[in-house]
């Protein structure tokens, strides 16, 4: 069971987050201020941390900085009410691994925590495999079983990202940030359109679907069981 340390001064928000994560099977530890949070981070060695930016006693970014100085590489999700691009950049530069602006949807938070816990290891594999799906990163070809899938470069990139994170919920915001490097939310529902195209190619009518749409949350690539 993954242990998550939550450092958040607003108790109501913290309770909601803790309850939600507990429902999803995480073990939650909560600190209401930065100093205590830093102590807990050092002593109980959580698998991931959620840190609010503005904390009494010690700023959230200072907590992360102190941890990084101690060579603690625990993945950190920074929460902040400061939504400007520059704030985000600063948060990530100070050692945060991901940045989520308040207010956020709970599914978004959970998806990001899970993504932090299951970050793909640096692999030298040149072929990705999920169930019958096979992606050759050198030849830039894709196959499902024996069927060759013709992919446009952008579809290839999207599928590669999803295969590296199979069985994980990927939210639209995550895909926009990671696959398209979008720093803003476009008016049109870009992700759905692109995903629709990819799904059309990956899952054909007579096949068991692999790309699943989680309503109101995002998408999951599942190996066919």
């Amino acid at each position, binding site marked *: 069971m993954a242990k998550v340390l939550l450092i958040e001064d607003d108790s109501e928000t913290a309770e909601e987050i803790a309850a939600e994560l507990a429902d999803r099977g995480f073990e939650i530890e909560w600190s209401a201020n930065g100093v205590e949070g830093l102590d807990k981070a050092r002593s109980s060695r959580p698998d991931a941390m959620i840190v609010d930016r503005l904390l009494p006693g010690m700023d959230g970014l200072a907590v992360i900085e102190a941890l990084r100085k101690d060579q603690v590489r625990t993945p950190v999700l920074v929460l902040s009410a400061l939504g400007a691009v520059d704030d985000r950049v600063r948060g990530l530069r100070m050692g945060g691994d991901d940045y989520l602006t308040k207010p956020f949807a709970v599914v978004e938070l959970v998806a990001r925590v899970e993504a932090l816990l299951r970050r793909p290891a640096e692999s030298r594999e040149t072929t990705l495999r999920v169930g019958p799906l096979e992606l050759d990163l050198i030849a830039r070809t894709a196959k499902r079983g024996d069927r060759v899938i013709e992919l446009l*470069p952008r579809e290839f990139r999207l599928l590669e990202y999803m295969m590296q994170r199979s069985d994980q919920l990927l939210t639209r915001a995550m895909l926009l940030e990671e696959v398209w490097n979008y720093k803003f939310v476009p008016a049109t529902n870009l992700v759905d359109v692109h995903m629709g195209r990819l799904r059309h190619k990956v899952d054909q009518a007579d096949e068991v679907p692999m790309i699943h749409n989680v309503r109101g949350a995002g998408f999951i690539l599942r190996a066919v069981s």
Partner: protein
Amino acid sequence: MRQPQFIRSNTFHWALMVAGVFAVFVIVLFGFIYWQIDDYLTARSDRVITAEMDEIVGLSPERRLEAIDDRLRQDPREVHLAAIFAADGRRITGNLESLPSDLRIDAPAQRANIIRTDRGRREHQVIRAIARRMRNGDVLVIGRNVDEASEISHVVGQALALGLLPGFGLCLLAGAWLSVRAQKRVEEVNQRVQRIIAGDLRERLPHRTVDEPFSKLAIIVNGMLDEMETMIHALAGVGNDIAHDLRTPLTRARLSLERGRTNATTLEQLQTVADKAIAGIDQSLTIITALLRLAEIENSRRSVGFDSVALHEMLREVCDIYEPIAENKNIALRVIATHRLDVRGDRDLLIEAVANLVDNAIKFTPEGGRVGIELLRGDKATILRVTDSGCGISDQEREVVLRRFYRSDKIRNTPGVGLGLNLVAAIVKLHGFRLAIYPGPGGRVEIICPDHKDGIKELASFVKCGQPAATVRVPSPEKCGRQ
């Protein structure tokens, strides 16, 4: 005692100084006139007495006495003086008591202090006189009273007083008047400004003729006030807009929550209600995010982070992202950008701007239409052009559409926050570029990036093409993402 305010004013000090300089100038002038006249009169007296002397010396001794007596008798103004002294200093005739000790004999006419004895009184006088020793040893003295000169100096002095004092006084009065007037105007302006500060935005500064500096200043300030009033009204409108746009979805959310709480009987109904409420809140959040983003861009000083951005690549990327959306709507999305053109800027922001334009173009183009993205060289500028076959922006709307927070009724009824063009305008402005919107039919929006010293670096291939700098349209539109 408190001085009247105008005495401390700058204008009055200047007037005082000018009056002083004027007085000194007049005094010097009058002094010069007096000195000249005095000189002239003395010279004339000297000539007269020298001539008389010559005349009397030329007479026989008896005739001399007669001549002197005649002279003294015919002298209503009592200016003539004459006497003959014996060698031992005894007076033989004349109206001088004695031979003046300081009078040099046989010298030209000079000043002398004498005592006049005729008409029964003894009177000290300063005169011009000449003395000559005659052959028999007697000394003949001829003199002339030059009181005329002092009379003239008196007249000159009177004239001076008559002219100078009123002049000086007038200067001071004018200075006082001017400074009081200036002060009045300042006070008037101050009162109006206080009213403006108090919130009366329609108040303006008073101005009379155009050529007066004060009025010119007032006109300039009034122009500024006009501008600010417009801006403040626009902002107030914006506030109302924001309030309206935020309240609408929030009201919807609240209503559905309330209804759900009372009416929902199954979990499913409750979930539907919750979904509706969440959608409403999300829309409010989107609006807030867009507004904050706009403020962020408008206030940012990002130019330090500017780098060379390869526009042709960027356009392909935008096209790549939007192509599926265009295809879904059966819209042909074309990019025409064969030449490498770089500008200095923030890549992320420029992508955001172009993406917004393309997003808009696709949104407002009916099915089966086309949207084009072009990169071309204009007159000393690189032009990013987005065209579509939609209804375009009407001529009337063309100007207002760029005004901050302007929302067309057309936009209001389509999904989206309606701040897209404002965002584009803000990004364009941040880069020092220009946004040009052309009237319909068909949408055509251009981002014009003027060449800076180091702004545009054209690749050799472009130069080799030998194309003139004027708009280079490259034929053979290619479909992006498929080359």
